[in-house]
C-alpha cells in the first residue's frame, strides 16, 4: 500500500493551523489582560522570530522535493532499504 508524499505535507499544514490558532489565543490573552509589557513583548518577539526562522528553514530544506513520490507503508522491505546499521 502506498500513499503520496504530499499527504504528510497536508498533515503538516493541519498542524500549522492548530499552531497559529493557539498562538493567536495566547496573544489575545496578553492584550486583553493588560499584560502587554516590555517582558511579554520581548518573549512574543523572540518566539515569533524563532517561528519564522523554523518555517523558513523547513521551506529551504524541502525546496525541490517531489511531493508525488509514493511512500510505501506497511512494507518491511522498504524499511530494510532505509535502515542499514553502520557496523
Amino acid at each position: 500500500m502506498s500513499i503520496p508524499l504530499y499527504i504528510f505535507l497536508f498533515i503538516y499544514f493541519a498542524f500549522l493551523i492548530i499552531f497559529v490558532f493557539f498562538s493567536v489565543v495566547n496573544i489575545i490573552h496578553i492584550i486583553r489582560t493588560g499584560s502587554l509589557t516590555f517582558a511579554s513583548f520581548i518573549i512574543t518577539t523572540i518566539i515569533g522570530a524563532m517561528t519564522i526562522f523554523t518555517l523558513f528553514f523547513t521551506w529551504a530544506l524541502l525546496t525541490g522535493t517531489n511531493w508525488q513520490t509514493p511512500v510505501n507503508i506497511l512494507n518491511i522491505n522498504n524499511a530494510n532499504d532505509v535502515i542499514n546499521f553502520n557496523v
Partner: protein
Amino acid sequence: MQIDSVIHLKSYEQIKLLLRRHAITFLPLIGIFIILLLMPIGVYFLINAIFPTFLTNTITYTLMVLFASIYYLSIYLFFYSYFVTFYLDLWIITNDRLVDIRQVTLFARTIAEIDLYQIQDISSDVSGFFPSLFNYGNVSIQTAGTIPKCILYNVPDPHHIRQVILELSAKDKDYHNK
C-alpha cells in the same frame, strides 16, 4: 487594554501594587526549553552514526524535516503558552481591595476579590535557598469574607508586601468604621 479597565477601577481607587511571580521562578522552564532545542541536534548525529543511509533517502529525509519542524514549533508553542499562564497570574492591590487573577490554563481563569477591611491576618514566608537568595516567597492572607484564604505565590519581597497590605488594610478599616 489597560489594567484599570480589566479590574473596573472605581473612581476613588488607586493601584498601590501590581504583583507577578518573581522572574527567577521562570528560569527552570527556560533551561528545559534550551535542552529541548538542542536535543534534535544530538539525535541527528546519533542517526547519522547508527543509520548512515537513513537521511540520504528522499522520503525519510522529507519526513524527518517535517517532523523536526513540528517538534520545534510544538516546543515554541508549549513554552509560549506556559509563559502566558505564568505571566497572567497577577495580584493587584488597590487602596480598597486585592484582586487575585489566576490563569489556571490557557482556557481557564479565575478572578477573586478581597476587600482590604475584611483582612484578619497576613503572613509572609521566604523559605529555601533560592527564595532567600533572590528574596521571594509567599504571602498568605486570611479574611473574614467569602474567600477565607488567599495566597500570593512567589512574589518578590514578600515581607515588604505584607507590611504594605497591613497598612492599607488598617486605613480601609478606619474608613469603614467612621
